[in-house]
Structure formats: structure tokens, C-alpha cells
């Protein structure tokens, strides 16, 4: 079974020729329209620094952050441990008395 497009192939070919004719007539107007509605992308492109150096900086900061996190964790554990030691020492002292 032929599709609608197959059935109308000849007519569509003719319509395309008409389009070419109209495009030719409006050529100057269209060139002007495309010029005024065009965007110079490069002029509005965000000029950001290169990815490699940015990623390097991010990597260094993240590494330092992780170091700080570990340090804070370690210090907290030492303090908790110290408190426990004092508690045990007090208990031991109580028992010894």
C-alpha cells in the first residue's frame, strides 16, 4: 500500500520548485533578516579559565578539606579518649582510696 507521501510525490516535487522560486524572490530580504537575527556566539561565550588548572585547584582544595576533616576527627577522638582516661583514673583513684 502506497503512503500519502508516495501518492503525492509528483505534486510535492512541484511544490519544492515553487518554494525555490519564492526563496529567490525574497533572497535579499531573507539575507538581511538572518543577519539581524543572528547571534555572534563567540562574543557572548563565557571566557572561563582552562579546565585542567581549575580541576587541579579543586583537587588541591578537596584534598586539604579531607585532611582537615581527618584532623578534626582525630582530635575529637583524642579528646574523647582523654576524657575516658580521666574518668577511669578517677574511678581507679576512688578504688585505691
Amino acid at each position, binding site marked *: 500500500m502506497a503512503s500519502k507521501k508516495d501518492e503525492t510525490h509528483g505534486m510535492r516535487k512541484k511544490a519544492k520548485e515553487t518554494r525555490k522560486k519564492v526563496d529567490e524572490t525574497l533572497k535579499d530580504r531573507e539575507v538581511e533578516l538572518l543577519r539581524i*537575527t543572528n547571534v555572534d*556566539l563567540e562574543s557572548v561565550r563565557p571566557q572561563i579559565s582552562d579546565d585542567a588548572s581549575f580541576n587541579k585547584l579543586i583537587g588541591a582544595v578537596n584534598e586539604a578539606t579531607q585532611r582537615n576533616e581527618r584532623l578534626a576527627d582525630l582530635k*575529637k577522638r583524642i579528646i574523647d579518649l582523654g*576524657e575516658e582516661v580521666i574518668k577511669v583514673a578517677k574511678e581507679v583513684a576512688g578504688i585505691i582510696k
Partner: protein
Amino acid sequence: MKQIYRLLGILFGLIGLGFALTGCSTVPKEVVELSYRMGEDLSALHKSYVKLVHDHFEMLREERMQYLNDEWTPMYIRAWTEDGRLLDVAKGEVVWSEKAGDFVEPIAGKEEEGLLFTIRSWSLAAVEEIEAKKADLMNPLNAQEDLLLSWVNDAFNRLYRGNSAITAHLNSLRKVQEVQDDALAALHLKDLRDKINNVLVTASDTAKKELETVRKADGLLQEVKKKLQKKTENKK
């Protein structure tokens, strides 16, 4: 027993001193808050930027659509009506024949069928060409908008990444400081850290003042030098 307490005292004293020496600068909680807020503001700015880009392209699309609807399509329909012999078809004089690839006289007894087929083919072809023209005018703008938005989004994503890395880092400094504060408070040394900081701030202010005095003196010295040079040259 006293010895145990003494040892513990020395141990905590050393830890406290270590904390005090390594943490002379302070990170106020507001700096983390500020950094976090900057992230939120960035998001608002991003949305506004994307809308601005979209609105601009929408305006350009409207301009092209206006040309399509008000100039191109009416001219095309007029030309196609003529080339597609719509009036002759409407009068029943000709019908389109795919077999012949041209307009032919209607077959007797099948005039209505031929008319319907021709009108349908004519309209389908017209709609297809108008849609194709629309795509030709709009697709480049849509592609440009997509590309620009992808650049903008990439740039903002980098700002988000950078800002969140800074926020996380400031937060980690804050955590370290809080732990230090707890330890110093337990050892009654927090005041000592604050005092050290105050002394450093005062020292920094004093250094700034002294630097200005030195700069002034340097300027004066340069002036005297110039005057002496002039006098020497005059004598020669």
C-alpha cells in the same frame, strides 16, 4: 596517683599547646554561611541568566516567525496557487495525475474523486514546504541557543563546584577549630588563643602603620635624592 594526674596534665597541656599553636587564625561561622549563601545566589543568578538567553532567542525566533507568517507564506501560497493551478482545479477543469506527473483533464465519472485527491495533495505539499521553511529558519537559532546554554551551564556548574569546594573547606576548618575550642576550653586555654589572636591583629595593624611611615620616609628620601641630583647637575 598524683603522678598519673601530673602525667595527664602534661599530656593535655602539650595537646592544648599544639592546638593553640596550629590554630591561631579563626574561622567565624558566618564565613561558612556566607559561602553557602553565595552558592544559593549563584543558583538564582544562573536561572536568571538562562531565562535571559532563552528570552533573547525567543525574540529572534518571533522576528523570523513574523517574516515567515507575514511575508514568505503569503507569497508562497500565491505562487503555489498559481503553479498548483488551484483555481483550475476548483473549476473542475484539471486534476493532478501522479501517473502523468502533471495536471490532466478529469476522467469522466471520477471528477469528484480526482478533485479530492488533487486538493489533498496540493494542501499536503503546501504544508510540507511551509514546515520545511520554518525549520530552515528556526533550527539554526535553536541550535545556537542550545550551544550557548550548554556553555553557560558548564560555566555555572564550575562555579558551583568551586564554591561548594570552598564551603566544604571552610566548614572543615570550622570543625577543626570547634574541636580545638572544646579542647582548649577543657584546659581553660581558649582565652589564651583569643589573646594570641588579638595580639596578632594588633601587631598586624601596627605593622601596617609602620609600613605607611616607611613608605612616606621613602618618598621623602626619593625627593631629596632628586633635588641633590639637580643641584649637582647645576654645579657642573
